[in-house]
């Protein structure tokens, strides 16, 4: 229901069709409680609020009819406040927590139908996870922590140490192979966690709030590290966070969750530019829109009076970076994609965004109009 409400921005790059999706989640439920399995199928319950369900059945709903798809190579962020069910959701993806209902499809195979053995193979070779509290083994040296996944799949000692050393170097921990986790700082420990996840050369990485236990400066380093790694190894990533800035920084697309339900899925600019409801709006309120929105979001259709010989910029240029160019030009800037004119951006549009970092309800109407406008251009 909610997913329908959110726009399906097929124009955003990477939004996958069902066939080439790395990961596809359909109708996923996770209910905790004695009679959990009856909840998702009971029509009289599925419409109710979480609180009412708990009162009626004693069950608590952590994940509720979630649908999304992640393309190969995409960084997909799930964002929500604590208790929103995001950590449960990510654990359902490899059935670390057994979903109550729904389908999780990885590369076209529904893993809900898999037995324990195939599931273990999945976790060993295809999908790895990085945890908030690292989950390192204190009795093992860094190298043995990194090699753990290889060890349990039965790789020979020499081979796995060679591979582990490579990955350890990749995450920048060269020289710390023989250290023990408690001899490392938090950031370094999480690098070990990262290396451990990378060691098995999985196709997909799951991150469960990996940096929320770190202090801000280290967190920034680690975020950059993830961006770098993504560039270098190009894995599909599902990243859980409660930090919108982090989500915007890392995510190709972002899924916003609340009370176990999907509120909105979309690229960063989309959430900021067109929040699906007050909840999302509240979330993005403090985000400087000029840092997130691209020209595509503020351009207007050329009017007959407009001079069409202004400077040219792409539609994905972030406003902040376009400010100087737009303000310096005496004519509106033309937004051009593949040689086709999409629209114009003048001083007016730019200043409006910069002045209006705080979204006031009064602006709502106008912005709502802006969306169809965008669509119309497309």
């Amino acid at each position: 229901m909610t997913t329908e409400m959110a726009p399906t921005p097929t124009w955003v790059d990477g939004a996958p069709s069902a066939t080439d999706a790395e990961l596809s989640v359909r109708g996923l439920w996770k209910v905790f409680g004695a009679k959990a399995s009856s909840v998702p199928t009971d029509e009289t319950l599925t419409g109710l609020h979480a609180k009412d369900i708990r009162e009626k059945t004693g069950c608590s709903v952590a994940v509720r009819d979630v649908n999304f798809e992640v393309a190969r190579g995409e960084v997909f962020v799930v964002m929500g406040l604590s208790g929103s069910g995001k950590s449960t959701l990510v654990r359902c993806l490899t059935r670390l927590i057994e979903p109550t209902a729904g389908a999780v499809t990885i590369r076209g195979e529904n893993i809900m139908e898999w037995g324990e053995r195939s599931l273990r193979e999945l976790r060993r070779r295809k999908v790895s996870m990085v945890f908030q509290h690292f989950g390192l083994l204190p009795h093992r040296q860094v190298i043995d922590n990194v090699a753990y996944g290889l060890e349990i799949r039965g790789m020979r000692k020499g081979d796995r140490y060679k591979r582990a050393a490579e990955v350890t170097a990749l995450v920048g921990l060269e020289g710390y192979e023989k250290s023990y986790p408690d001899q490392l700082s938090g950031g370094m420990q999480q690098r070990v966690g990262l290396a451990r996840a990378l060691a098995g050369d999985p196709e997909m990485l799951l991150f469960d709030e990996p940096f929320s236990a770190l202090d801000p400066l280290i967190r920034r380093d680690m975020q950059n590290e993830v961006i770098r790694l993504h560039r270098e190894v190009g894995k599909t990533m599902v990243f859980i966070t409660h930090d919108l800035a982090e989500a915007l920084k890392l995510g190709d697309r972002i899924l916003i969750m609340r009370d176990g339900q999907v509120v909105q899925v979309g690229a960063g600019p989309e959430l900021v530019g067109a929040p699906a409801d007050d909840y999302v709006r509240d979330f993005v309120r403090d985000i400087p829109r000029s840092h997130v929105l691209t020209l595509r979001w503020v351009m207007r259709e050329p009017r007959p009076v407009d001079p069409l010989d202004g400077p040219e910029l792409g539609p994905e240029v972030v406003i902040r970076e376009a400010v100087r160019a737009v303000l310096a030009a005496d004519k509106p800037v033309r937004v051009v994609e593949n040689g086709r004119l999409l629209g114009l951006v003048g001083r007016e549009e730019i200043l409006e965004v910069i002045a209006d970092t705080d979204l006031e309800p009064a602006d709502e109407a106008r912005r709502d109009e802006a969306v169809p406008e965008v669509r119309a251009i497309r």
Partner: protein
Amino acid sequence: MATVAAPRLILARLNRATSLAIVVVCWIALFWLLKGRDTLSLAPSDVTGLHTSLNDLNSSIATNRNSNPLFVYFFNEIQLGVSHLVTFFQSLISQPSYGRPVPFVGWLGVVAVISYLSWMFGNWRVALLALVGLVFIGLQGLWQESMDTLALTLAAVLIALVIGLPLGVWGGVSDRVNRVLTPVLDLMQVMPSYVYLAPLVLLFLIGPAAATIATVIYAMPPVIRLTAHGIRSVPHSAIEAADSLGSTRMQALRKVMLPMAKRTIVLGINQTIMAALAMVTIAALVAAPGLGQTVVQALESQDVGTEFNAGLAIVVLAVVLDRVTTAASVRVEMARRAGATRTQKLRRPALAIGAVVVVAAIYISHTYEQAATFPASLTISGRAHGIDVGSHIANSTSTWTAWVQQHFHSVANAIQNSVTYHGINPLQAFLENSPWWLAAAAIVAIAAIVGSWRAALSAAVCLGLIIGTGLWQDSMETLAATLIATVLVMVLGVVFGVWMGRSMRADRVIRPVLDAAQTMPVFVYLVPFVALFRPSRFTGVIAAVVYASPVAIKIVADGIRSVSPTTVEAATASGSTRWQIITKVQLPMSVRSLALAANQGLIYVLSMVVVAGLVGGGALGFDVVAGFSQISLFGKGLAAGAAIVLLGIMLDRITQAAARRADPSAHSRTSH
């Protein structure tokens, strides 16, 4: 629940102290009117139908044990297997074996092996301690006895670990198993070890098998508990991470949970070894070989010197094994810190050299007499020098005790008489001459007042079952002695506990003494007491007090110490005297510790009831002892054992409920 809530509300309105006083006054008043009636007394020579049928069971098992399939295919097999295990260890280190007049490994080999292992798993300090300790035991003239004890302990610990570790792991990973295990372990620990000796002999006959199994029952709970606890304490995040990487259950257990719980598990093994050693003397009562035999014989002939010498050997063994396993648990921690440093590289060749030395020592001790049997004298340049430290220890102990006996006899007598005439006798007369229904009702009421309704219910059930054992009056006599002993324990607990809690210096001096008292086998100090006080109920009480006081004192001291210094400072600032601070601040604020100390004190005292029966304690303790050595009283002994356990459960429930009630944080919960 509703039916319980109503009277509880009424009672809650009355002051607890007032209602307690009312119950006691009513009890005393009715006692004067009705004493001697319905006392359910049973003459010492009489038995009830239950006892007779237990006797019949005993003789029927004795006759049919080689035809009954349960015995032929189960109990007898276990008995045989365990016996073989013990015999194997004995033939290795203590008994002539393989057609040789000496064991396979002589004293030199044993000393070398144990020192080497201590070094390998611990550090060089404990290795040295092991070396010195073992040689000392040899010099005491107790080498073979000690090795017999060690063999039995090894067998028992091995079995306890083989059963206990998996159970502990299982309890660690499964909540359901843990829920089943906990009450069973509680029961195993409340039950005095002597109590299950007779049933075990019934199943496994006398000998090392029954002794080993009794030791296993006593020693296993710690390793199960601590293993489960260790596994439970492994952070969830580590287990989840292992799962996320595709670990199988076994891999997660082997590579994550067990290594991370290792330290706690080793601690559990340490506790189990200590508990096993504590059973040495009890094991001797069913013909187990070793130091216990020496102790038991010395107890019979009241030979304090020999007793002390043998007891000292047990203590030395205990200290060595304790320090070595403690060092091993520390090494678990240290090993990863030291990591791959150069020490590690040095260690390998050093260990290898050590191993060669050990093998050489074993060979020498296997081959040469002097290294096989601990020499009674050293021949230096043609002259034999006696190195019999044991008889020196024994003689000086005897002399010293005789001196104490002579000089303190009258003082001891006075104390004994005053406690007996003013404490034990009146309370015993009161409890055992009250009509059973009066005493039972009063006890249940007291349980409800100081504890909870649930505790009262437990008390009612336990008392009902005690009546069923046919030993009501004996139980009341035991209860009287237990209460007196517990009061004395608490007096000592408060006096020394407050002193230690308030003064670090006192703590530093007293605590090691308490530690030593707890390692010492009970029987070691039993003999001097018997010599001083003669076999009597008072001697039993004193033995129990000595046994139970250290733990009570420690609990009280810790409670006093944990009172916030700010509160004490505030009280001092408002001009309180020292006495006022103790009575108005520190004691009331550590009331939960006091209740806990009373609970532990009671349990410890009760576990001494049977031992007290050996030194004139009478009542249930004597019934158990007599039942063990007189076939016609077998059933009565079993019933008495059950009665002791029931008393224990009842007192445990009541005091635990009282402790919960005393906990300030619990008030808010109960007021809901």
